């Protein structure tokens, strides 16, 4: 595997990076879901019917939450608010076989601690929701409010009212209360207050309320909100070389988990920069000269997120107004005012450089009260701070190392940080005061719970089976010298190199020859072709030499510049479908590492051509596993890319793949429906029958998108299967895979706080009652904290026991051929990710269908 490939296969796509502090998700997600309470189903109602608690909520305390309730309304009205926690998606109740229990049994028990704290509420806690009606109707919200609260003695001091809906901590005597008020003009108004809902502690609105309350607690602890999370500005660390400032902080959510309402909190970091856009422009101009400046400036700046100096808002730079300076004017009210004067009078800010050009941001957010966006915002570079990391920084090993040294926390450090937050909460008097007003408190320690460690798998390779070290979850050593399952012989292949790299090319060739023998790969000498170190000449060399019979093309790239790599992949994946392998010369320049690298390259070349490496036992027959992932290109105008891979054989060693480019306004699954049918046809061709079970692992589902997967994608998948024949009814399971989650687990190994071992399954306590879900820690990490992967089975007609579902998932994590070890997600997801990434980053077109049956995208 090349350095590039390693970085990519394990990294994330550029587009998927968390953009910047406060950046709004740019895509408007699915239509709004009413977040307003309908009484929650089943088990929850019981508590809600309890007697009201006499609770004294002060007016002050109540006021804190009203902002949140207004948000509820916004969610109802315009659909601007997203439910990031996917609450309200009740999938488990539709699956008969997991209604009773969704826990597995395999493996040995392990004691764990999780980054969760229970929320303890005063017994009989509830919120009461009232509808308020005016006769004659009153327009003004302020007047409605004033009229209603003439009756404070009836309603009580604690209340929140948004003009129509009233929340009270206590139940009024009657379900319907009629009050009479008088306006200042002496007009009599009849107000009817009707109880519409009794909200139990676990109702969505109450959960929302807890979250608002907790955000307030973080504010009391002097944390700054950036985006959805809170950071501590008093304890920053700096990387002065690039003027980076990193704030430590927390991601928090309070939700109803399996048996109790808990706070889940994880450490998070925010990268800020104490450099303004103007500073950046100055140094860029110095670097590239006046002539090239406009072009370079546009290239570097457009797409970046900036933070304004005079408020905490963030904007994305969409354009640069080269003909605007701060001396230009804009219309404020009825008068024209220059930017310069505006900032002076409004914020007392002086513009030092009157000739700086302005930045343009197309504001997508709606104007006040749902009005259309107010048009582009013009921003003064001097008052804009850059945020986040640029690609250049990301490629800089030293910056990333510095960053990692501060942000990559060992399990012990992470636990300490979270514990410190807990003790801060419990020690701070203001926080405690706030909580007691509401009759709430947090358990003062992390949740202790049990998980299970699944037995490690036996790796089967060429009639032999071996075991691996369960702690490292890696079998690089074990597979050495063993023949692979199936090998493609290399009879006709090419190696391209530049003059400078002639020597490394030769030694790579020799080493490949040496390592391929024991694997069982027959290798003829490659045809060596020298190319000039320019993109055009590389392309020409490819065009002239790659023929129909060419089995494999190896290109040695002098640097890890992206353009040449893209050029090779574009030509060989679209125009002239041929498996190819790029290697950066630096990777193979060290003689002592060459054996290892060549081994990896040989393995990769073999799978790209259709060879198979290893397998694990899959105790289900006629099974097709499908993996789906997408890639979102953040650069303007680029489309999202969806990739689908599907297994073709019992051993999960052959995969069919399709990659589609999404059209505007189209759901990714619409484009992938055809791909699924093609996959089924390919399965039929290989096996002479259609699969009797299909399990879809769907990755790349964002926060708050679960509902649309359940409501839209699953039916689409079923419909697509149906097209294979009316009486074809395979069993279908759809599993949503989520890597980016804030749940963390800690084990105690040899008296020390450590990561849970690979194969740890968690399916109690921290799962969600309304889902059939579980966590698996499948990979091993050498540094930092291991991130568990969350699996949510949203549809399952297979009848498979939860235990088998968990184990099958874990088995599939062993099957990614670009890594001789266990990966974080099932192989089909990792393959789909790789494919979508390749197309999104390099090819930008649908790959040639002749490659569909190969792992060419590895």
């Amino acid at each position, binding site marked *: 595997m090349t350095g590039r490939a390693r970085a990519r296969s394990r990294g994330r796509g550029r587009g998927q990076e968390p953009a910047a502090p406060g950046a709004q998700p740019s895509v408007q997600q699915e239509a709004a879901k009413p977040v307003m309470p309908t009484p929650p189903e089943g088990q929850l109602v019981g508590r809600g019917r309890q007697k009201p608690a006499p609770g004294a909520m002060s007016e002050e305390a109540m006021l804190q939450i009203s902002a949140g309730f207004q948000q509820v309304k916004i969610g109802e009205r315009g659909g601007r608010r997203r439910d990031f926690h996917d609450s309200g998606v009740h999938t488990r109740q539709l699956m008969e076989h997991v209604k009773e229990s969704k826990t597995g049994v395999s493996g040995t028990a392990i004691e764990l601690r999780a980054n969760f704290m229970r929320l303890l509420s005063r017994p009989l806690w509830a919120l009461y929701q009232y509808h308020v009606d005016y006769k004659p109707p009153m327009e003004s919200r302020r007047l409605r409010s004033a009229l209603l609260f003439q009756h404070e003695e009836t309603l009580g001091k604690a209340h929140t009212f948004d003009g129509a809906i009233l929340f009270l901590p206590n139940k009024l005597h009657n379900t319907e209360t009629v009050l009479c008020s008088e306006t200042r003009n002496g007009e009599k108004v009849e107000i009817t207050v009707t109880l519409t809902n009794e909200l139990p502690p676990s109702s969505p609105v109450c959960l929302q309320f807890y979250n608002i309350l907790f955000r307030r607690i973080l504010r009391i602890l002097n944390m700054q909100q950036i985006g959805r999370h809170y950071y501590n500005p008093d304890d920053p660390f700096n990387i002065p070389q690039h003027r980076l400032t990193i704030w430590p902080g927390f991601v928090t959510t309070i939700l109803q988990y399996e048996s109790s309402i808990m706070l889940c909190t994880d450490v998070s970091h925010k990268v800020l920069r104490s450099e303004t856009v103007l500073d950046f422009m100055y140094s860029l101009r110095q670097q590239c000269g006046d002539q090239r400046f406009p072009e370079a400036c546009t290239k570097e700046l457009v797409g970046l997120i900036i933070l304004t100096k005079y*408020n905490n808002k963030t904007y994305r730079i969409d354009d640069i107004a080269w003909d605007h300076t701060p001396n230009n004017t804009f219309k*404020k*009210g009825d008068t024209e005012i220059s930017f310069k004067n505006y900032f002076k009078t409004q914020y007392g800010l002086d513009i030092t450089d009157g000739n700086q050009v302005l930045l343009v941001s197309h504001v997508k957010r709606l104007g006040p009260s749902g009005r259309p966006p107010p048009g582009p915002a013009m921003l003064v570079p001097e008052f804009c701070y850059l945020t986040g990391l640029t690609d250049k920084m990301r490629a800089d090993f030293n910056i990333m190392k510095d960053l990692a040294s501060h942000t990559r926390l060992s399990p012990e450090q992470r636990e300490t940080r979270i514990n410190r937050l807990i003790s801060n909460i419990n020690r701070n008097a203001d926080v405690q005061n706030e909580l007691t007003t509401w009759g709430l408190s947090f358990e003062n320690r992390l949740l202790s719970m049990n998980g299970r460690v699944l037995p490690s798998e036996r790796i089967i390779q060429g009639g032999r089976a071996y075991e691996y070290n369960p702690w490292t979850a890696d079998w690089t050593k074990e597979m050495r010298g063993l023949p692979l399952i199936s090998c493609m012989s290399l009879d006709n292949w090419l190696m391209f190199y530049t003059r400078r790299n002639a020597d490394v090319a030769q030694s790579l060739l020799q080493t490949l020859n040496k390592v391929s023998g024991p694997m069982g790969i027959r290798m003829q000498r490659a045809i060596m072709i020298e190319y000039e170190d320019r993109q055009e000449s590389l392309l020409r060399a490819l065009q002239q030499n790659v023929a129909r019979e060419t089995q494999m093309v190896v290109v040695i790239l002098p640097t890890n510049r992206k353009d040449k790599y893209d050029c090779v992949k574009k030509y060989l994946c679209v125009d002239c479908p041929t498996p190819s392998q790029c290697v950066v010369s630096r990777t193979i320049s060290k003689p002592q590492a060459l054996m290892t690298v060549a081994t990896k390259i040989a393995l990769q070349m073999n799978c790209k051509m259709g060879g198979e490496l290893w397998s694990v036992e899959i105790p289900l027959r006629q099974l097709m596993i499908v993996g789906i992932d997408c890639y979102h290109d953040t650069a303007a105008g680029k489309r999202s890319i969806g990739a689908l891979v599907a297994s073709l054989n019992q051993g999960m060693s052959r995969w069919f793949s399709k990659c589609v480019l999404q059209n505007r306004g189209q759901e990714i699954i619409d484009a992938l429906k055809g791909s699924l049918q093609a996959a089924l046809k390919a399965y039929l061709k290989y096996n002479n029958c259609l699969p009797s079970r299909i399990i879809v692992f769907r990755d790349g589902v964002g926060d708050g998108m679960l509902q649309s997967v359940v409501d839209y994608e699953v039916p689409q998948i079923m419909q697509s299967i149906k097209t294979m024949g009316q009486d074809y009814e395979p069993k279908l399971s759809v599993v949503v895979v989520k890597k980016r989650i804030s749940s963390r687990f800690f084990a105690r190994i040899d008296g020390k706080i450590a990561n849970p071992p690979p*194969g740890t399954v968690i399916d109690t306590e921290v799962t969600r009652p309304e889902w059939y879900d579980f966590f698996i820690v499948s990979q091993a990490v050498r540094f930092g904290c291991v991130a568990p992967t969350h699996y949510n089975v949203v549809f399952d007609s297979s009848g498979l026991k939860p235990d088998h579902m968990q184990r099958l998932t874990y088995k599939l994590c062993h099957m990614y051929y670009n890594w001789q070890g266990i990966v974080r997600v099932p192989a089909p997801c990792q393959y789909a990710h790789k494919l979508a990434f390749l197309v999104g980053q390099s090819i930008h077109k649908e790959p040639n269908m002749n490659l569909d049956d190969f792992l060419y995208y590895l």
Partner: protein
Amino acid sequence: MCLMRTHSRADLTKTLAMTTPFSPPLYMQRYQFVIDYVKTYRPKKVIDFGCAECCLLKKLKFHRNGIQLLVGVDINSVVLLKRMHTLAPLISDYLQPSDGPLTIELYQGSVTEREPCTRGFDLVTCVELIEHLELVEVASFSEVVFGYMSPGAVIVSTPNAEFNPLLPGLRGFRNYDHKFEWTRAEFQTWAHKVCRDYGYSVHFTGVGEAVGHWREVGFCTQIAVFQRNFHDTMSNAERLEPSVYRLMYRVVYPSLSDNNIYQRTLVNEVLYEAQHLRQEWLSRMNMDSSNNAHFCAPPLMDVFQHGLEGGTRDCQPVYQQGGTICVPLARVWSSPRVRALCGSVQRLREELQVDSRVRMSADGTVLILPAAADDEDDEEVEEEENVKAVSGVANNVEEDWDRELGCYGNV
């Protein structure tokens, strides 16, 4: 932010135009009056009574002009709680700490109560406040503000009743909560009495003038600016904890007057500069070695802009010594940002010598940085880890989940 928005602003102005014919709106003019005053007299400690939605405080936070302590007092705690977070420091206040300190405090309390911690202020503002008090309370207000607190200056604004006939559609007072609205004569009578009783002098002005012959009714809002006649004895007194008022909110802005923040900011700036000089030097060395055609002798300093003004010592070159790159302190000192932070090279040296993030030569003239970037290929370490049994390996018994489900051979 300056959105090119037309809707909301226009609407707002329209509604305002119906009630008050002033542009900018009168409340803005009142705030601007205070801001202009602060700009001219530069008070250090300012208290705003009846701060309500904290609009004036928020404006003064931006137009600081040397204010170090900004206090808001209102009787309504709910409105304070609702708005107090708008006074919190912005992210940029942390990214670029200001030079002077600033503390903002909000209290719930009444202007008729004596609160020790409100004494010793330079300026007290009561914008549209007194007309909300009962007339009896006005007396105790005068006693508390002028007699007890005795600040350096007081700005009091209140409606001018004589102007009311010009306001279209107005019957009675301008606001239902107003207990009185004074004519100019009434206001001035009160003000002069205050001056006599407590040793202040006053001058009258206002904002919002009518046009033409209506001018003689005076300003729409009348303003009295009081100056204390005697020297103050309390301004340097220790700040006390509130004993009558209730503290609702307190925030200390990050500033360079905080030693830790100062040290951190300075060191960041120095390291930024030093690293850039190092990088520049390294890339020049690289270029020289790859363009062997003409080997440059140790890079003569190309003219360095800031360097010239400091004299001869500024042209000291960056050089390599063993595994380190040495950057002369004088070169770092030539950065305007560093200069702005630190008055003299001497001070700079002292600050850097005590900081653990900076390595300096023994005589404190040279910063020492590592020459080579750490090599990135330290990851391929072959390591033998001792195997610990976590869990058994799956037993060799062949499993068949289909059969277990009893549905094998379905299709």
